[in-house]
């Protein structure tokens, strides 16, 4: 009778529409208030290079949330910093940056990824095998990874100096699009496709939707969790690589504010913290919206407090838009 209505799709489109609208609105408002310099190539590229590190951490948090079981990853920035620091300490011992900068850059990236895999695996094992709650496990590993970073770097930053391939990776644009931003979009697209169209992705959503039913249907909860948190670790290490490339420096306490921002990005993308739902395209749009708002406020000399206030307002507006109480109105259980 009444049961054939597309509640699910209605919600999804609303969230996507909201995020697209917000992006457009912020852009228009910024141009109107701050001037056309907001949309000149330099600023667009400048905003574009600031996005990947936040976006990758946001995707990591989103994946953890989708997997359910109170999933979250608080260790993202710690892994990012640790990757950069370990790479910055080890690679100069093997490769000379002056003689072979390209090899240096690749080895640097490789080391970062390895650290990301290891850290992600540790998170995954703690959660899937040792059965720790994700918030506690990743809080603990976050502090552990930061601790290692501090000790290994003696608490001070490590300067990389100017290494052309790395610097290009962090800043250069090809056909107007910064390389690191293009990489971010590629990664987001790959993960989005994997979530939607591969057995792994579908199983992850189902796991997050009902862990018990997933077990009865033969899914391996521990396997899925392990892969999820490892991917999150890898994404964090790529963020670390991008940070190192952008700043030419790595430090253990860089970006401590990113933990909460990543969570904000995921929640404002409509990812359900209880699991089973979330779209990567929305995570990307959420990140760009927050970045543009932030840059717009910087253009206007508006204090960062108002930026945080505006982000909060945006989140509330988003939650209002997605709030669905249609079930009782449409179905009225008979």
């Amino acid at each position, binding site marked *: 009778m009444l049961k054939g209505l597309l509640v699910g799709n209605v919600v999804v489109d609303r969230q996507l529409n*909201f995020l697209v*609208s*917000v992006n457009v*609105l*912020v852009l228009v*408002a910024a141009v*109107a*208030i*701050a001037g056309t*310099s907001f949309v*000149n190539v*330099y*600023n667009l590229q*400048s*905003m574009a*290079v*600031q996005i990947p590190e936040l976006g990758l951490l946001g995707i990591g948090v989103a994946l953890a949330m989708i997997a359910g079981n109170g999933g979250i990853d608080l260790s993202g920035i710690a892994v990012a910093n640790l990757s950069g620091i370990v790479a910055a300490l080890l690679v100069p011992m093997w490769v000379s940056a002056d003689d072979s900068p390209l090899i240096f850059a690749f080895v640097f990236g490789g080391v970062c990824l390895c650290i990301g895999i290891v850290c992600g695996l540790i998170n995954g094992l703690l959660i899937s095998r040792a059965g720790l709650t994700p918030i506690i496990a990743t809080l603990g590993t976050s502090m552990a990874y930061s601790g290692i970073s501090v000790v290994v770097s003696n*608490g*001070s*930053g490590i*300067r990389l100096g100017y290494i052309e391939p790395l610097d290009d990776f962090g*800043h250069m644009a090809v056909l107007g699009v910064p390389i690191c931003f293009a990489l971010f979009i590629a990664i987001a697209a790959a993960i989005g496709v994997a979530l939607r169209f591969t057995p792994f992705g579908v199983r992850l959503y189902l796991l997050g939707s009902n862990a018990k039913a997933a077990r009865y249907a033969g899914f391996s909860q521990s396997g899925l969790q392990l892969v999820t948190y490892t991917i999150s670790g890898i994404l964090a290490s790529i963020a670390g690589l991008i*940070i190192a490339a*952008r*700043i*030419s*420096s790595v*430090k253990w*306490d*860089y*970006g*401590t*504010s*990113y933990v909460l921002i990543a969570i904000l990005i995921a929640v404002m993308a409509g990812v359900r913290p209880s699991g089973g739902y979330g779209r990567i395209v929305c995570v990307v749009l959420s990140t760009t919206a927050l970045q543009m708002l*932030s*840059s*717009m406020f*910087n*253009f*206007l*000399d*508006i*204090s*960062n*407090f*108002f*930026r*945080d206030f*505006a982000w909060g*307002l*945006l989140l509330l*507006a988003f939650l*209002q*838009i997605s709030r669905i109480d249609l079930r009782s109105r449409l179905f009225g259980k008979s």
Partner: protein
Amino acid sequence: MATMKKLAVCALLLGSVFTIGTALAAGNKTIVTVVKLAGETWFTRMDQGVKDYGVKTAGVTTSEIGPGKADAAQQERLIEDLIARGVDAIAVVPFDPPMLEGVLKRAMDRGIKVMTHEANNLKNTQVDMEAFDNAAFGAHFNDQLADCMGKSGTWTSFVGSLGSLTHVQWADASAANAAKKYPDMKLVSAKNESFNDANTAYNKAKELLKKFPDLKGIEGGSAVDVIGIGRAVEEAGLVGKICVYGIGMPNDTSRYLKSGAVNGISLWDPKDAGFVMNKIAHMLVDGTEFKEGMDLGVPGYNNMHVKQGPGKGIIVTGQAWIDVNKDNLDKYNF
């Protein structure tokens, strides 16, 4: 959607309210001062100097902006946006100088003038302004502390963070001073980090008082440290039995200065510093030469000492410290 319209109106209103300064008169030079942490009393006072300079000087628009959290990443992003905005000059108080090397270089490459304050290890700056010689300042603290302690006993020091260059320089100079002149003074747990947070300083001080029951002297590092330390001293009932000196803001610390929990604070007026910073930035924009002994028109900055910095820029140093205790407290109302 009604919510969207409301959001748009809010954004526009907020923007217009704070855009007063952005109404550029044609040809006005923009100088933006970037501080470590928006909302900290120190930098609120500095803002008065920043505004003052803009009001008193023709052809120049000044403003101050800072991140909401003490995080090098946030400061870096702020500056990226300023570069994209195309300001004429940036005056920065870096939270973590080495982490800004890259972005400041990019600013200068784009023709933006860059000056810094409290960052004399920074390569990519045209002028770094120090209110006084940091080593001398550190030693000055120590002398005051030693005097109060009767030149013997256990003492400890605080810093904002291990990356906060000037704090570290004061603490190190202080330690060196004690080692040279006061052999009976023993330094324990040097350079405790407070992250520019009075509560963190308070908790750390409590710990230290417990750990070292015979502690006789504490030196603060960031402007809020003595507040936390003073509170801990009061609560432990050690007023008058333990010597506390540090940098601080007169109004914020007045309560503890009056009660005796804090013996004295030394500082430089951030308002004067802000004024001088903008003056120097303006001089850079106009291409004025910096000469040894020049007078910048502000008390304490009448005889600037110029020396070569670590990069291509110079370091200009004044003699602008002031000592405040309960006797002269009423002279300083900030």
